[in-house]
């Protein structure tokens, strides 16, 4: 089974560089800390949203531009299985608050030698293995709730993806302005 254990060196190298920068940025941003992640869900701290939404806007502009220019072959979508996506999200949120990290930031927190992140990654491995065992029955149960296939928001609506990107960007900037103004007021008060 492990005949082709390694993929080609170029891909490994590019993956390694990506990981190095990603881990560095996550830690530099400070989003690898328990009270930052949980604080987001308590609306006490909006560092997670600021980082994620900025990343989403910047990358969506680039990816859709490259797609339009034919520089990339296509998107990498997964199927929208409504029941699986929604139930999975509900379970994921509980785990994220208990552990205090999402999978990516948990690995970055291992880099900062947080003991709880190390234990959390162990739990995650077991969770992945148990899920693989339970997959057939869960899949049978939840897939009938709806499967839209590999679609984007633009695919299921009559407008261009750029409409979504521009609207999302405007909403995001508006949200950021509100958050910064409120933070400034708190400091003055």
């Amino acid at each position: 089974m492990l005949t082709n254990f390694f993929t080609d060196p170029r891909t490994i190298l590019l993956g390694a560089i990506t990981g190095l920068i990603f881990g560095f940025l996550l830690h530099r941003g400070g989003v690898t800390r328990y009270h930052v992640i949980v604080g987001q869900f308590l609306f006490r701290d909006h560092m997670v949203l600021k980082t994620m939404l900025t990343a989403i806007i910047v990358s969506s502009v680039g990816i859709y531009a490259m797609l339009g220019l034919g520089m990339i072959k296509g998107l990498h979508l997964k199927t929208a299985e409504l029941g699986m996506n929604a139930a999975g999200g509900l379970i994921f949120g509980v785990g994220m608050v208990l552990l205090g990290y999402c999978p990516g930031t948990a690995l970055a927190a291992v880099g900062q030698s947080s003991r709880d992140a190390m234990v959390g990654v162990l739990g995650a491995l077991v969770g992945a293995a148990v899920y693989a065992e339970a997959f057939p029955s869960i899949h049978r149960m939840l897939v009938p709730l709806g499967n839209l296939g590999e679609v984007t928001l633009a695919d299921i609506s009559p407008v261009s993806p750029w409409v979504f990107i521009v609207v999302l960007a405007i909403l995001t900037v508006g949200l950021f302005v509100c958050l910064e103004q409120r933070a400034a007021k708190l400091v003055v008060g």
Partner: protein
Amino acid sequence: MNQPPMGLWRRAWWSLYAIGTGIGLLSWATFLFIDKSPGTSTLLVGAAGTALCTAEAEHVAERMHYPKEYGTKVGGFKPVFDWQMSLHLTLIAGAFSEVRLSRSLRSEAVPGLWAARFGASRVKRLLAALAGGFILLFGARMAGGCTSGYGISGGLQLAVWNWIFFVTTFISGIATAFALFGRVPASAPSTDNRLES
């Protein structure tokens, strides 16, 4: 807040908008050069599969979920040590190098917010983290991704599955956070030993 002038690396943290932009640009590069979109939880399935595999190869090959992510006996297996594996190993190294550069090493087991609610017991915290990790990945796999895979890779592609996940994660995260920590005052000590001013 007025921060005293500090070196670039010693500063508490960079603007999150800069960090977000950096992650965004990084995703351009992965699409352009590797033709992949990043995600962490697929990797962990691979790792679990590999670990089980050494013990019970046939069993793993028969499970529906592994073939979905890692190919089949007939069609050929995808390499186990792929770009994701490499990415996530260096992700740890990247965070560690940042810790060294900013000299902000902290090896905590019990975060301040947790301690304010559940006490300083390490055992309790680590058990919760173990359970949390289990629930996290179970949910992530069920939904088909995680925060980087879904939230960012999916979000940037305007994928429908991502936005369902994003919203449901927030709903349940908010409910869980308020149930557990809603009554902890916002002034509860954080255990950061970052250079905050």
